[in-house]
C-alpha cells in the first residue's frame, strides 16, 4: 500500500525514531524546555508529537516533573491548566512577584509616550498645543506617563496668550538614555552619513 513518496518518509521517520529513544529524565528535560518557551499551555498531545514519544511516556514524565517542582520547594510550579501544561510562579510568592513587577524600568515606553518624549526632547521647551500640532494626536495621557516616570519636567509658563505650561526633559531622562547633557542627543545631521549611504545604494 505504500507509495514511493511515503516510503521515503517512513524511512526517515523510523531512522529518526531509532535516534531519539529517550530516557525518562531526557523526556522530562525536553518537556520542561518546551513548556517553558511556549506562550500557551502545552498539551500532552503536542509534547508527544514533538518528542516522538508515546502519550503515556510523556504523561508519566510530566507527573514526575510536577512532583519534582513541588518537592524541591521551588519558586515555580508545573501545573495543568486549560488542558495543557504550564510553568508558573507559586501562589504563595505572588506578593513578592507583585512587589517586583511594580518597579518596572522607566525606559520602557508605549509608542505614544515615546513619540511625545521625542518631540519634547528635540523641541524643548515646548507646550502641549505645540506637541498636539506636531503629533496630530492628543498627548495628555502620554505626558502624564512621562511626568510619572520623571522623564520630563515642567519648564515654567510661556509668556504668550493663555500662558501655557512648557515642558522639557529631566535629569532622569539623561540618565535613562545614557546622555551626559542635552548636546549628547544625536541630531539628524549626525546620522546624515548613514542616511545618505542608504540613498546612494537604493
Amino acid at each position, binding site marked *: 500500500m505504500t507509495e514511493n513518496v511515503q516510503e521515503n518518509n517512513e524511512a526517515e521517520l523510523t531512522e529518526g525514531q531509532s535516534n531519539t529513544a529517550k530516557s525518562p529524565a531526557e523526556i522530562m528535560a525536553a518537556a520542561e524546555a518546551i513548556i517553558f*518557551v511556549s506562550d500557551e499551555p502545552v498539551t500532552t498531545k503536542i509534547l508527544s508529537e514533538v518528542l516522538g514519544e508515546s502519550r503515556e511516556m510523556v504523561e508519566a514524565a510530566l507527573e514526575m516533573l510536577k512532583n519534582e517542582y513541588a518537592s524541591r520547594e521551588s519558586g515555580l510550579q508545573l501545573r495543568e491548566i486549560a488542558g495543557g501544561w504550564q510553568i508558573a510562579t507559586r501562589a504563595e510568592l505572588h506578593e513578592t512577584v507583585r512587589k517586583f513587577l511594580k518597579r518596572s524600568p522607566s525606559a520602557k515606553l*508605549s509608542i505614544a509616550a515615546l513619540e511625545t518624549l*521625542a518631540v519634547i526632547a528635540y523641541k524643548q521647551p515646548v507646550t502641549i498645543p505645540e506637541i498636539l500640532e*506636531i503629533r496630530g*494626536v492628543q498627548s495628555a495621557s502620554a505626558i502624564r506617563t512621562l511626568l510619572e516616570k520623571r522623564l520630563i519636567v515642567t519648564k515654567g509658563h510661556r509668556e504668550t496668550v493663555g500662558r501655557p505650561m512648557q515642558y522639557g526633559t529631566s535629569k532622569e531622562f539623561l540618565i535613562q538614555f545614557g546622555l551626559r547633557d542635552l548636546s549628547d542627543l544625536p541630531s539628524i545631521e549626525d546620522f546624515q552619513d548613514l542616511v545618505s549611504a542608504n540613498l546612494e545604494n537604493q
Partner: protein
Amino acid sequence: MVIAVNEAAEQYLFDFEKEQPEIVAESRDELKLKLGGFAGPLDLLLFLIKQEKANIFDIPIAKITDEYLKYIRLMKSLDIAVAADFLVMAATLIEIKSKMLLPREPAQEAEEEFEDPREELIQQLVEYEKFRAAAEMLYEKSTIEQAIFTRGRIETDDNNSEINATVFDLLNVFQKVLLRFKEQVKLEIEREEISLAEMIDRVKSRLRSSGEVLLTDFFSELRSRRELVTAFIAVLEIVRTEKVSLKQNRTFGEIILRSV
C-alpha cells in the same frame, strides 16, 4: 543568489568552487555586491596573501597587486559594482609597487632605518586581522546563544507595545513624527473643508453605529478650528432635529450624545 561564472572569467586564478560568488545584501538599502563575501579591501587582500602562501610581513607586492587588480577587473566584467574603497586600495597598492621598483639612493640606504613602503599597509593588515578574528569569535558566540531560548509570554508581561527605547529610537521616532506632520499639513491643504451637511451625516452615522458619541473623542479627531466649529453646530442641529439627548454625568464630566 549565485552569479553565473562565464568562460572568460575562468582564466583567473580564483578557486570558484571554494569562493562562491554571491550577492550579500545586508539590507535592501545596502545591496552591496560582493564576490565570495569579502567584507572590504583588507579582507580581500588577506585572502590573496593567504592564497599565495605569502608572509604578511614580507608581502610580494608586485604579485599581490596583480592579483588584486585582476580581481577588480573580474568584478567589473561580471557587472558587479566595485565599492570605492576597493579602488582606493588598488591605487595604494600601485603606489607601493612603484615605490618598491624605484632604485634606492645610496644616501637613503645608508640611513639606519630604511622605511619600507609596505610598512603602513602591513600595520593596517595586522590590526585589521585582529578584529576580523574578533568578528569570528562574535559569530560563534551568537551561534551558541541562538541555541538558548528564554521563556514564552506569561500573563504578567506588559503589552508588547512597550519598548526599551534608546537614543536612536528617539531620533527615529522624532523623524517619523515630523514626516507625518508634513504629510498631514499637505493633506489639509489639499482637502476641502467639510460642510455642515457632511458633518451632520458623520455624527449621525456614528450615532447609528454605536448608539452614542463621546463628544471629547469626536472633537479630538478634528483637524482644524473651522472643523471644530462646524462639528459644534452640527451637534446642536442634531439635538434640535433628531431624537437624541446630550448627557453629562457630573460637572465637567464627559458629554455624551445618545439616541433616545
